[in-house]
């Protein structure tokens, strides 16, 4: 599954991996804002942004080609809208949509590929994200693989049955019902697993508040790298347009 690869990347070590998660999150957001507010695609400006992210990727000792390829998942969607804009004569917009979406996706990927998700979520919580959502994402991520595996097995089993059904011309209606039944079973298993988890929590003294260890106290140096990167992004942005144009 895709998130397994990302998980592995995020557990490596490098100066980027060691940087303070809150700093990285804020730095990434600053970068994204610079990209989002740029009025049009100018090669120097966006070349600068791209170089900045690529520098981050190499400093993080991540495999460059797989990372670049993974961020490209956003291109089919952007491509469609780019084509429509280009056909309507608005090539500025066409470029903007493709380049911005890609560079932004690459930046987010760099962030997540250098910070294990639980730590990133903890950073978001400390920066003010709603606690319940954070806690739910933690559980979601923890059991995502388990439930997905179950779904895979069901899909394979269903496909086998589907093959048979097709041969007997049972038609797509029967397979539809089978799929609905599979979903219901998956729901049930998830529900029951959640109940079992809750029981296990209660058995170890859970009283309503999920307590966990505080993250390791980062040193001040953990902020240098993301702060520097953010400053570079802002500098590139400001150097290219002194006014702050609202459209786009």
């Amino acid at each position, binding site marked *: 599954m895709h998130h397994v690869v990302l998980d592995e990347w995020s557990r490596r070590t490098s100066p980027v991996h060691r940087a303070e998660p809150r700093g990285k999150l804020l730095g990434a957001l600053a970068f994204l804002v610079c990209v989002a507010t740029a009025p049009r695609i100018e090669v120097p400006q966006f070349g600068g942004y791209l170089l900045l992210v690529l520098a981050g990727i190499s400093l993080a000792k991540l495999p460059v080609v797989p990372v670049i390829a993974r961020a490209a998942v956003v291109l089919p969607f952007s491509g469609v809208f780019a084509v429509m804009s280009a056909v309507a004569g608005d090539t500025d917009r066409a470029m903007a949509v493709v380049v911005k979406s890609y560079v932004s996706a690459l930046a987010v990927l760099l962030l997540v590929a250098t910070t*294990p998700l639980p730590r990133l979520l903890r950073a978001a919580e400390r920066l003010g994200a709603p606690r319940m959502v954070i806690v739910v994402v933690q559980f979601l991520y*923890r059991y995502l693989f*388990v439930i997905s595996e179950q779904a895979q097995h069901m899909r394979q089993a269903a496909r086998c049955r589907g093959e048979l059904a097709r041969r007997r011309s049972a038609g797509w209606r029967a397979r539809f019902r089978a799929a609905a039944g599979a979903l219901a079973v998956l729901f049930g298993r998830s529900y029951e697993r959640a109940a079992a*988890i809750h*029981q296990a929590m*209660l058995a*170890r*003294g859970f*009283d309503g508040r999920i307590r966990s260890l505080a993250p390791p106290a980062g040193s001040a140096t953990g902020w240098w790298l993301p702060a520097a990167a953010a400053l570079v992004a802002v500098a590139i942005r400001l150097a290219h347009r002194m006014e702050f144009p609202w459209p786009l």
Partner: protein
Amino acid sequence: MAALIEVHNLRFRYPDGTEALRGVDFRLEGRETVALFGPNGSGKTTFVLHLVGLLRGEGEIRICGLPVEKEHLKTIRSRVGIVFQDADVQLFMPSVLEDAAFGPLNLGLPEAEAKRRARRALEQVGMAGAAEKAPYHLSAGEKRRVALAGVLAMEPEILILDEPTTFLDPPGREALLSLLQGLPQAKFLVTHDVEFALALAGRAVFFEEGRIVGEGPVAEVARKHQWTVNQRRFFSGAQTG
């Protein structure tokens, strides 16, 4: 001296009406290890859930002298540690260390102390090196050991293990056996694994349809209720067939 576990006439009915427990009497004294045998659905796990107040039935249960009631639940749950059959369900925190520290933190211990206990428990089960790992990177045996560590970190007096040898390969089973043999707590072993029980337990009780119908030394109980793999019956077919 009060027994560690005292159960009188425990009855329990599920919401849909099925009678799961029909008057169970049980006693666990001192540092003994007791095995619990019985067919699936006989009420073994249901019984065990009552001991930590996860299910509430009729009758009397006392843990270390305390009745299993709301005001005592926190204390009881710190005295009795359950390791459930599905280890995946017990390792819900992002890292092994955080999971082991979950119990001590709930007990109200300060973070440094909780961490210390967690690390010590992980050492006890031989998983100290995995402290920073995520639970989904562990094998079945490793998960079971971390789950045990999570319970040991609370320093309970009684350990309840529900089918501890499921999914373990023979070396894993051996490792778990020596691990448990080295632990000082009283142990309550719900298991189908008669050999395992023989090696650990001093006595056994046999559950059937919500009641205890037999009690005594492990080998005797197993033999009396034919609770063992009859090797001759299994393999004779292969010879003739």
